[in-house]
């Protein structure tokens, strides 16, 4: 009675097979290659976002400057924020998640390798789509307004702020197409992150190595998991909001149009219901990285691991309950203001716990102040400043003075730059040897850190004072009489110093990955599983799947403790490490990896086509292009669904149907 059909021929074109060369990148399903692509793409956008910032700072270095027009300024600040958040910090965090997550939990790949690839391609094409606004987008004055001159190409990017408040972002006040590029572009980008989050959650829950119980996972993996849940539940809300603004602009709905009974404050609620969890999405990965780096270079375990994990989860959960603290001045009721003021104060508690635990980690340690450690310690120091200014925002009446001023700009740059970006650079240096097999230049790395430290504080420190002294946000010019010129000039100088730091980093990275000294596979005498394999990481990750017996399992395999609680290297440690290296490069049994596929690339390609179809639906080619894009996507999904994760192999029988294995077939 029970029959199992045999799969017939699957694809129209022959399936790609290569694991090297250019096409292997386009068709890869390997989490490490995907992570690397995320990293380089995100860094390119970092440069673009940084250039946008420098243009802003040149404009603001003097009062009443005419360096940028108002249109250009508005496009630059909008795209600076949008780029840094959606096209840099989130994807570079994804780069870390992609590369490291399977390594840290002892897995060969993520649960759904091709879905992992599609996240990347959707991100890449979404980001490109967003930036083509500068090439093709149109902008004008609000309906009925006048311009002295048409907007330049530089002024033709999205210009409604990264937060796109309605009704300014609606069709009446943002005439032209640039805000359509924004709303549709962000929609595409959100989809990429949502797909990733599903992948990471299933990976963490289903694919850990034997013995890797949840409370033995590295903190970085925990933070990845919390971030994935934050993305899972917050992205749908911004998706709804973006659909609403897109429909308002293109199809005549009235959600945010007050002249027809719509509610502009509703946009704020929806946006910040996403937007607040979003900021925790931005910071938690860096907190995870710092929680790995500090113990390694203190040669002590993380102080209070359960508290750090729990605090991270608490921050994620409570992050859904503070959104209206972005709206204290919006005219919401006093009860609302009081409630969200209190919840915002409450979220400072788990944040403080983490900071104290990090200090507890380095306290009494044997601290190596190399580049990753400097950036991680810098993270703690700078994040404390940003966190404290954040607490001052929770004093609601004081926030009425602070909101929409440079004081807020100072706050979030301290937590996002001094926090997230410092943490991310710490990770880049820390895992550089694992990624490339070589060591970076420590001298250049330290130079990078100090240039950044000075430039960063010079740029964002004075902004606290500027804001309290009346400088509002998103302001294209300011008057000479305000007296804000000198400090603004100092800020601009700081920004250029940061740029120098970025150049130092780029020089270090590109030189060292080719010419740096060869790195052993455990150069830091570290604690977690990724250091038990060769550098650079082999394509199959683990030659033999690890078995874990404790938190920081690798450390405990190398060290035991004396009566004083101090680590003593085990006599068998050297042999163990040598064997790991030997076996790591020569796997004893054949290892089968997911085959490459071109479907994820095609799905990514189809996305902007739909976007252009919606924007240019009035043109003859618009709707057909959109339909073609949709067909490419649907067709690719069907083809992908039929294509197995791995092509059948002859060496031994196909076990692909056994439950609980890591074969995420058809996924």
């Amino acid at each position, binding site marked *: 009675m029970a029959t199992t059909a045999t799969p017939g021929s699957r694809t129209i074109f022959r399936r790609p097979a290569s694991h090297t060369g250019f096409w292997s990148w386009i068709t890869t399903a390997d989490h490490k290659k995907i992570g690397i692509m995320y990293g380089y793409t995100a860094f390119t956008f970092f440069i673009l976002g940084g250039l946008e910032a420098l243009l802003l700072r040149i404009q603001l270095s003097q009062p009443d400057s005419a360096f940028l027009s*108002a*249109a250009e300024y508005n496009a630059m600040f909008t795209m600076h924020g949008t780029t840094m958040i959606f096209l840099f910090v989130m994807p570079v965090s994804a780069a870390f998640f992609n590369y490291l997550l399977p390594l840290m939990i002892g897995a060969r790949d993520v649960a759904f390798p091709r879905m992992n690839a599609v996240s990347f391609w959707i991100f890449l094409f979404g980001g490109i789509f967003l930036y083509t606004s500068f090439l093709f987008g149109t902008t004008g004055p609000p309906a009925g307004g*006048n311009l*002295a001159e048409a907007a330049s190409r530089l002024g033709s990017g999205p210009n409604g*702020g990264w937060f796109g*408040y309605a009704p*300014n972002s609606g069709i009446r*006040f943002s005439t032209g197409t640039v805000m359509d590029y924004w709303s549709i572009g962000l929609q595409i980008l959100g989809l990429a992150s949502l797909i990733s989050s599903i992948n990471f959650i299933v990976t963490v829950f289903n694919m850990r190595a034997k013995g890797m119980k949840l409370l033995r996972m590295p903190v970085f993996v925990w933070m990845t998991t919390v971030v994935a849940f934050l993305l899972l539940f917050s992205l749908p809300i911004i998706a709804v909001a973006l659909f609403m603004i897109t429909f308002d602009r293109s199809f005549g709905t009235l959600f945010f149009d*007050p*002249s027809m*009974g719509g509610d*502009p*404050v509703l946009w704020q609620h929806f946006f910040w219901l996403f937007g607040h969890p979003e900021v925790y999405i931005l910071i938690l990965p860096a907190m995870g990285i710092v929680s790995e780096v500090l113990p390694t270079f*203190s*040669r*002590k*375990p993380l*102080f*209070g*691991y359960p*508290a750090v994990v729990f605090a991270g989860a608490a921050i994620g959960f409570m992050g859904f309950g503070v959104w209206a603290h972005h709206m204290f*001045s919006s*005219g919401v009721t006093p009860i609302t*203001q009081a409630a969200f*003021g*209190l919840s915002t*104060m*409450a979220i400072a*508690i788990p944040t403080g*716990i983490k900071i*104290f635990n990090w200090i*507890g980690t380095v*306290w*009494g*340690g*044997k*601290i*190596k*102040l190399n580049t990753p450690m400097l950036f991680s*310690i810098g993270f*703690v*120091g700078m994040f*404390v400043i940003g966190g*404290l200014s954040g*607490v*001052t925002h929770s*004093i609601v*009446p004081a*926030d*009425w*003075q602070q909101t*929409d*001023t440079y004081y807020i700009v100072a706050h979030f740059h301290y937590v996002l730059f001094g926090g997230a970006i410092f943490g991310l650079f710490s990770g880049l240096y820390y895992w550089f040897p694992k990624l490339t097999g070589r060591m970076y230049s420590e001298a250049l790395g330290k130079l990078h850190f100090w240039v950044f430290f000075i430039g960063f504080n010079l740029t964002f420190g004075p902004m606290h004072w500027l804001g309290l*002294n*009346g400088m509002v946000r*998103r302001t*294209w*010019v300011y008057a000479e009489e305000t007296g804000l010129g000198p400090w603004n000039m100092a800020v601009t100088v700081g920004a250029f110093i940061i740029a120098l730091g970025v150049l130092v980093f780029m020089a270090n990275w590109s030189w060292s990955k080719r010419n740096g000294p060869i790195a052993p596979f455990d150069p830091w005498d570290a604690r977690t599983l990724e250091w038990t394999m060769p550098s650079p990481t082999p394509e199959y990750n683990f030659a033999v799947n690890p078995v874990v017996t404790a938190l920081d399992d690798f450390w405990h395999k190398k060290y035991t403790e004396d009566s004083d609680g101090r*680590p*003593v290297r085990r006599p068998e440690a050297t042999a163990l490490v040598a064997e790991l290296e030997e076996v790591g490069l020569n796997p004893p049994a054949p290892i089968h990896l997911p085959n490459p596929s071109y479907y994820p690339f095609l799905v990514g390609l189809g996305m902007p086509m739909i976007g252009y179809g919606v924007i240019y639906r009035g043109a003859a080619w618009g709707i057909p292009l959109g339909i073609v894009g949709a067909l490419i996507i649907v067709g690719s999904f069907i083809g992908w669904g039929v294509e197995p994760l791995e092509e059948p192999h002859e060496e031994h029988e196909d076990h692909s149907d056994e439950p609980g294995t890591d074969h995420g077939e058809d996924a």
Partner: protein
Amino acid sequence: MDSLDPQGPIAKDIDGLFRLTLYIATAIFILVQGGLLYAAIRYRDRGERTPEPKQIEGNARLEVIWTVIPVLILASIAVPTVDRIFKYTSCSDDALHIEVIGHQWWFEYGYPDEGFTTANVLVMPTDTEVCLDMSSDDVLHNYWIPKLNGKRYLVPGQDTVLLLEATEPGEYWGQCGEFCGLSHAKMRARVIAMAPDDYAGWLAEQQQVAVMPAEGSLEQAGLDLFLGGQCVSCHNISGVTAANPALVDGAIYGPDLTHFASRSVFAGAVLNLDDPGALEEWIDNPPLIKPGSFMPNIDLTQQEIEALAAYLRSLD
């Protein structure tokens, strides 16, 4: 526009609360950064003489202490915070009501009891709680006079409220802080607080119709140009223009010019009436000064501009 130099009871109260928090935050800052720096230096790896560190995994008592103490600190600040929220989000019964309507890119001020509107300069009496009833005609704006209070949004289709109170007579500068389009940076605010007697006198003056120019003067030529051209479609001058454009439902209109010259600033409180040539430059090409401006450049000749400017300067 220094919010750290509060004038008036509301701003001072808020500043007090902010400073208290700032001092606590500074203390925490010193403690935490000090601890971090101390640890980084004291526990540096100095090579062979530095022993391997004790592998401490945590300390429950310490962790509880440093959780509870912040809770207590925050709880104590929370009480006055909540109190001030309720105190400053509603107007008392005997407050003086003034309307504020936000436009792209200027503030309109209405005095409904007296039956007139002005723009760009908000005049109010000292030692009086002023309750601003605010809304917007187009997009979100906000109203911020740093020395007198925090800011509040102006929302189209909804009403919001902001309290202002000044003790000293004088000028208080402010700005729109909520991104509102191309000329957001050029939407500024000016408050003038006057002693109550002076305020009463100002009210009386503002209720008068516009000053009529002398026959055959340059000002008269300006008035003729004004009435004969596009200006009347947006601007009201009481006693002169036939209809008030502001009263038309859904219309886009400009500031009421009846007492234009009684105000020291114009064009969204960006330009000074005293600056020679400023008014002429504005009339000549408004979109050049304020990109996106609803007041168009109508290619006036130099003579026409001078006549119009003279007329406007006569409107005390």
